[in-house]
């Protein structure tokens, strides 16, 4: 069994655990791949477009800045998250590994180095106001970026404002949003009882809903975004496969001597409900789980003919990320099957952005199938797809983890009903 690392807040080398070196290597692969797909000048131009975009959900950075700039955004977003973790001397665990990989994934569509920082600083201000160490709020500080569009939309999306005024207001909005986020997210986890893995998205959705309502009350409306790119399926699939194989190789090399087959068998029998820290429980076997999820989800996109672009790559990397913190093939399969059924029968095409993303992110409800059986997982996935289109309207694209918001609502309604009639499997 993996033991948590002792806290070693010493020099940089001491804090740069192998788990973080692996993530840094993955970021270098992503950035290097970007350099192979575009010229440095093109990447610079595209990256500027990304930084100054409104970044609402759905804003595909592949379309906004091109493939090289998109990958650079992901690598830098992940790099910023890693820098924060190193600065705080946080020891690796499944939740931190999850947050790092997820941040990199959302760096392809919505998060970027500009809009992440004010939110994280807001969390820092909250910690200081409570006279508590910032390290206690590491997860909130990393995942508050679900509301990154708040910063970008106010900074760049309100035309009548002078650019510098917009910028200042955007940063201020980020600070305020980040300040209130930790308290809300700590509370919302009780609402869905740990069955929504994207708890931060649920909290973000509630805050975004409130913000949209406040803006509307003062006559400010937000035009939604629907920027969906394509044309790079093969190279992006190749990158995703490479990252997945890197994780599997890391699990085998770093976890030499570990009985991965036995550990995976035990891992795949867990429900996945919060808090299922697979890295703490099963060590490097978690990397194998992450890699397998990456391979399977990428293959699914190719089989269904869904564009492999910024948002869907973010979806795959989110599946990968939660391979260390609650997801595995056995508990995601029923939920995603239910989502696929819903996507086939609803009025939209399967390949429509909403359906494609809902299919990938429905896995946030994996614990329902894991705890109560595949049939309930199927139901949860089906309901998730039908709910998510409405939650996107409520938050006007301000909440990147919109699927987390929808999942929380589904869990909030479904879990009491299931519990009333079913005993959870042990």
């Amino acid at each position, binding site marked *: 069994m993996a033991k*948590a690392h002792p806290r070693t*807040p010493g020099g940089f080398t001491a804090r740069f655990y192998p788990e973080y070196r692996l993530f840094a290597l993955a970021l270098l692969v992503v950035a290097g791949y970007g350099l192979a797909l575009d010229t440095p000048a093109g990447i610079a131009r595209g990256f500027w477009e990304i930084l100054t975009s409104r970044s609402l959900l759905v804003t595909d950075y592949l379309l906004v800045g091109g493939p090289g700039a998109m990958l650079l955004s992901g690598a830098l977003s992940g790099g910023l998250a890693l820098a924060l973790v190193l600065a*705080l001397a946080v020891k690796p665990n499944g939740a931190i590994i999850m947050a790092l990989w997820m941040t990199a994934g959302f760096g392809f569509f919505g998060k970027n180095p500009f809009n992440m920082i004010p939110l994280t600083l807001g969390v820092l201000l909250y910690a200081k106001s409570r006279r508590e160490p910032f390290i206690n709020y590491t997860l909130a500080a990393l995942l508050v970026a679900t509301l990154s569009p708040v910063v970008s939309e106010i900074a760049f999306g309100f035309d009548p404002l002078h650019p510098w005024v917009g910028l200042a207001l955007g940063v201020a909005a980020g600070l305020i949003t980040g300040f209130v986020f930790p308290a809300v997210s700590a509370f919302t986890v009780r609402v869905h009882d*740990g069955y929504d893995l994207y708890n931060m998205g649920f909290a973000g959705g509630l805050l975004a809903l409130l913000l949209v309502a406040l803006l509307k009350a003062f006559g400010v409306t937000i035009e939604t975004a629907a920027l969906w790119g394509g044309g790079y399926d093969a190279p992006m699939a190749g990158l995703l496969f490479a990252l997945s194989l890197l994780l599997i190789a890391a699990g085998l090399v770093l976890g030499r001597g570990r009985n991965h087959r036995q550990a995976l068998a035990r891992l795949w029998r867990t429900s996945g409900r919060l*808090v299922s820290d697979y890295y703490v429980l099963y060590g490097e076997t978690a990397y194998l789980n992450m890699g397998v999820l990456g391979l399977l989800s990428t293959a699914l996109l190719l089989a269904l003919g869904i564009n492999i672009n910024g948002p869907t790559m973010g979806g795959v990397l989110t599946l990968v990320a939660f391979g260390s913190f609650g997801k595995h093939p056995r508990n995601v399969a029923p939920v995603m099957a239910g989502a696929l059924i819903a996507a086939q029968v609803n009025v939209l095409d399967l390949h429509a952005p909403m359906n494609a993303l809902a299919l990938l992110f429905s896995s946030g409800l994996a614990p329902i199938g894991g705890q109560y059986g595949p049939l309930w997982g199927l139901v949860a996935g089906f309901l998730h797809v039908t709910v998510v289109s409405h939650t996107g309207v409520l938050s006007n694209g301000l909440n990147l983890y919109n699927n987390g918001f929808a999942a929380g609502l589904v869990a909030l309604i479904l879990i009491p009903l299931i519990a009333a009639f079913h005993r959870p499997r042990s």
Partner: protein
Amino acid sequence: MQYVLEKNLRIMLDLLTYFHRLGATDYSTHLEPRGTVTRGTVCCSLPAAPRAAMAELDEALNRGRQQEIEQSYWGLSGETSSDTELTLVGMMVDRAEIAYEAGRLIIRYTRNEGPPGPGTL
């Protein structure tokens, strides 16, 4: 630190739930808040030493405190139907001793309620 009493009570409730699953009887608890350190003791009666359970408890409760997880997810502790409660409890205690004495299974844990340690922001 906020919610000190609430967190300790939830830890104890999780451990009592674990005892219940072992078929234990005669539960008792004791809580000693002493400044920035809280010591808790949870006991139950079992006819024989549950070796496997004691090993599981020792491993789960001594994995190491993780305040960054605790802050976000402590609200899930104190549940009575989850297969994940020991994982979270282990992240919320600094150290635990598991013992079986005179027909009683005893868990003594320690929580540092102050900052996590030197060198942190």
